């Protein structure tokens, strides 16, 4: 509906849809004299997660003051699905060129209207002097942004999805020159919106080059193409990390997995699935790869009703790979829950910091490759007797403390709970939890057991030496 009507409209100027008129230039801070000299937007649609690489060459007008930040704009829907934004700045010339990571924060500007673009500011490490130019590389990922159409497919059909975006770069700045590339997994592209100049080469569609775009321009485009990559969505993941100073870290991960693609409709025929694996159930998946740290041991894979026997573990000195198969192949809309657990050697992950505190250094995100986690909870269960836990995570998470009980616990274990929504593979970065721990607490539980056994023997000896009968035997 949308692409057709768009195609009929000929001229580009008419298509200029300036959304959010409330956001006029006046809402930008006055010192901002930034404009985008050239922008390249590469959208990678090959997987279930949309990856967008932006290369922005920005320039500060000679008349303006120093700029310490550059703003990025997203539509409200994009912000809902936005999982991660990263930016780097190219510094140095030619061969000495290095990319310096920059920090990004959500800007409080221009969120007055409900459909106004949301702004994120990239904080520049060194302010941009008037008249200077610099290049920013921005990467952001959108989850749940590919809409399956048709929404229900049968076993023999392959999965087609819609992707909606803008042909031109949504930006609060004036854009001099811009081009957009969309990369799709296969040559099968059902349709795409034409906004001239638009060219298609194989599995790639190129929009642009467009010149002299006004701030906040938006040209809706729609791409309809085939995407049979597994749409594995972990609706909920709880990772529980239990530290034992006797030498083990036990990790238990509870997954609630769903096939997030086009829903399966009608018959599931095992015969078709077994005899024609290439055509039948093209969008379904039956195994997943979990990347675990090296030297992992006692790996298990089970669910509520028992062990799942179909998994393989490969280990080498750099990593361990666990290939798991759910009990049944997952078709669109099918669910499956399971638990993975494994042990890790303590000395690989728990260290003592210079101030005498201990800290655990672990990877934050989900070890499943190429999946979206809607709701991630990481629980770090510190040993009994630990004090002052302090998590250090490189991004914003919801944090709180709770107490959990395990074998032979008396006072309970302090547990640090970290929660984050919309997590992708890029979130697999190290995080730390610092805590104070006195090694004497390690002995509490063995001593308890020893004294219990001792008491038992003492009671037995006492019983044998006592005569409890009322009538004295002769």
């Amino acid at each position: 509906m949308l692409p057709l009507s768009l195609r009929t409209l000929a001229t580009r100027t008419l298509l200029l849809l300036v959304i959010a008129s409330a956001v006029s230039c006046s809402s930008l801070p006055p010192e901002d004299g930034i404009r985008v000299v050239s922008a390249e937007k590469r959208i990678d649609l090959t997987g279930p997660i949309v990856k967008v690489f932006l290369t922005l060459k920005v320039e500060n007008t000679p008349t303006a003051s120093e700029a310490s930040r550059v703003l990025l704009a997203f539509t409200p829907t994009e912000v809902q699905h936005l999982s991660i934004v990263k930016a780097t700045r190219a510094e140095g010339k030619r061969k000495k060129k290095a990319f310096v990571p920059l920090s990004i924060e959500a800007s409080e500007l221009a969120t007055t209207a409900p459909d106004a673009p949301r702004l994120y500011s990239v904080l520049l490490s060194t302010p941009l002097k008037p008249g200077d130019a610099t290049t920013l590389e921005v990467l952001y990922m959108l989850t749940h942004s590919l809409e399956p159409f048709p929404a229900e497919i049968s076993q023999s059909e392959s999965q087609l999805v819609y992707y909606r975006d803008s042909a031109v770069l949504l930006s609060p700045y004036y854009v001099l020159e811009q081009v957009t590339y969309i990369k799709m997994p296969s040559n099968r592209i059902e349709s795409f919106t034409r906004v001239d100049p638009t060219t298609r080469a194989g599995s790639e569609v190129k929009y642009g080059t467009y010149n002299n775009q006004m701030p906040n321009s938006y040209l809706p485009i729609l791409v309809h193409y085939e995407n049979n990559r597994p749409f594995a969505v972990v609706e909920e993941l709880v990772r529980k990390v239990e530290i034992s100073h006797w030498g083990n870290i036990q990790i238990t991960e509870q997954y609630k997995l769903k096939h997030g693609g086009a829903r399966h409709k009608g018959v599931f025929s095992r015969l078709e699935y077994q005899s024609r694996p290439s055509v039948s159930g093209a969008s379904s998946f039956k195994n997943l790869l979990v990347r675990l740290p090296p030297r992992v041991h006692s790996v298990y894979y089970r669910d509520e009703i028992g062990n799942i026997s179909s998994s393989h573990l490969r280990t080498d000195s750099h990593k361990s790979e666990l290939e798991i198969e759910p009990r049944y192949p997952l078709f669109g809309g099918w669910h499956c829950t399971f638990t993975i657990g494994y042990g890790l050697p303590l000395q690989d992950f728990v260290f003592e910091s210079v101030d005498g505190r201990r800290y655990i250094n672990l990877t934050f995100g989900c070890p499943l490759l190429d999946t979206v986690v809607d709701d991630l909870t990481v629980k770090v269960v510190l040993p009994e007797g630990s004090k002052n836990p302090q998590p250090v995570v490189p991004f914003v998470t919801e944090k709180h403390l709770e107490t959990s009980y395990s074998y032979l616990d008396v006072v309970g274990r302090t547990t640090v709970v970290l929660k984050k929504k919309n997590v992708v593979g890029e979130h697999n970065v190290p995080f730390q939890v610092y805590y104070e721990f006195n090694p004497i607490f390690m002995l509490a539980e063995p001593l308890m057991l020893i004294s219990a056994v001792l008491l038992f023997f003492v009671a037995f000896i006492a019983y044998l030496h006592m005569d409890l009968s009322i009538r004295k035997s002769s």
Partner: protein
Amino acid sequence: MAPPALDSLPAPLRSLRLKTKQQELLLRVSALALIYVLAFAVRLFSVLRYESMIHEFDPYFNYRTTLFLTENGFSEFWNWFDSESWYPLGRVVGGTLFPGLMVTAALLHRLLRALSLAVHIREVCVLTAPFFAANTTLVAYAFGREIWDSGAGLVAAALIAIVPGYISRSVAGSYDNEGVAIFALLLTFYLFVRAVNTGSLAWALASAFGYFYMVSAWGGYVFIINLIPLYVLVLLVTGRYSQRLYVAYNCMYVLGMLLAMQIRFVGFQHVQSGEHMAAMGVFFLLQVFFFLDWVQYLLNDARLFKSFLRITLTCVITVGALALGIGTASGYISPWTGRFYSLLDPTYAKDHIPIIASVSEHQPTAWSSFMFDFHILLFLFPAGLYFCFKRLSDATIFIVMYGLTSMYFAGVMVRLILVAAPAVCLISAIAASATIKNLTTLIRTKSRSPQTTSGKTTGSKAAAKGAVDQSLPFQHNAAIALLLGAFYLLSRYAIHCTWVTSEAYSSPSIVLAARGHNGGRVIFDDYREAYYWLRQNTPPDAKIMSWWDYGYQITAMGNRTVIVDNNTWNNTHIATVGRAMSSYEDEAYEIMQSLDVNYVLVVFGGVTGYSSDDINKFLWMVRIGGGVFPVIKEPDYLVNGEYRIDKGAAPKMLNCLMYKLCYYRFGELTTEYGKPPGYDRVRGVEIGNKDIKLEYLEEAFTTSNWIVRIYKVKPPKNRS
């Protein structure tokens, strides 16, 4: 007894030396402890080989109810109306089960939690049966000591720890009533025998509580409530009546009956049902006996007493017969149930109750399974009976009666081998222990000087001593040879038991394992695959129709509502399902619509060669369905009395729902190299109907080895 060399030790060490009595105690306790551990450990094969999981069918129901009990508390459990089974009837679970097992597991769980051991209830359930089996060895020891001596007790404990007849129902994961019930059964018997031997009210009370626990755990308590009166009767007849017996039986019966009435499922059966009337009759008989005893003592005149006896007996018998007659006629006393009849008459079930006869564990026992489950005990048992008769006492009479009656029941039904196992072990233990004791005495006396023999005697050595006195030639060597033979037999027994446990009784039956062609183990986990698919991918209120065997598993693992399950309380409902399965698709559709069925689940082994599938059970469905609905006739599915599924099969067979669902699209599949497509590997034939069209159902899921196939019932068509 200690070697004389020790006397030369320095004084402090000598004081540490144990006295003979202490040594014996130490040996006994450590042997018992080892047996205890052995009994537990030998049942863990399945956990080590597979995983910590619940086995079979009924244990899944028990597990589900235990889970409910731990999550919702006892009062909720007691009043639980389960709408997930027997749709649309539902089932009053709290009032139709024996809660002993669940309460035991829940209490164990709570105890472990209180000791801050964070175990899951599933682990508790899986290990309940081995734990109680281990406890049973202790009871067997005490029982053996009570009826013979502590040596026999130890042997009995060792035998019962590994007897396959008992292991078959008590491996880890076999979370069934029998697991705790055998413990309760033996405990009740032990306490009762102890009460009879001592005449102590305390032991009788304890035995009443043991009986209460047994009633709460298993329907097999009927055996106790009939065996004990029978035993009392035998003692009366043989002139062994005593005050001890009077105290023991009255206390045990009255209190046990009152306690048993607290179990909702049993209720007032002790005073209302035909199966319990024997106990009541014996109770009154005992009162009459006591009364007559007293009168005889008062009268002190034989002639007078004789006439009094005649009058009293006539009155009592008339009153008793009248009460029984009126009770039965007015329906106050219910007649014997079919299950009870089928025990007394093995052919009864086959003719009258196909639903009981269809269960494999209710079949009469084959000789081979006696040999399989008892091994050398089968030969030791008669020997033990001989020893018992040689030293007849109240206790040995009891064990002889227990052994003989339970052996009879074991012959009637395979599963009742379980009840016979403790008795067989105890009697065999007497034989083994007495024989070995005699032999060792012979050897010892021979090796020492003849003078010392007179000093050492125990109760059972009269025969041995006689033999020594005669001092036959080669006696010493013969004794050694016999002893070696006995040890050889006992070690064969241990090997056999371990082998049976490992090979036959430790597979969970929910996971099937086979040897692959390269020698590796292949696992067929199709059941759980299907149940988990149901659990995750069907609407939460979906109703599943399947044959009743899978009902408990679907509700426990699939968490979905079923039409019928293994609690076969409503024969008509099961017959309705049987009728649907054996009708044509359109007729079956009407039945399924009337039952709100959303999915149909069938088990099919034709691809893998798994023989206990629905096609092999199909004739029972026809029989049970036909028993209630005469439209279904067994001969329609047979050709000249023969059950066939190939081209020569009956047309009704080839087009009934079960056939269609099992073989849908099977005709396109090649199962075995060199065989035509559609070759059924269980029946070993090519199927007769390869072109199966389904009109009212559609394939929803088939597991990876085709063992479980699930079909979705289509909604009714719009009216045109």
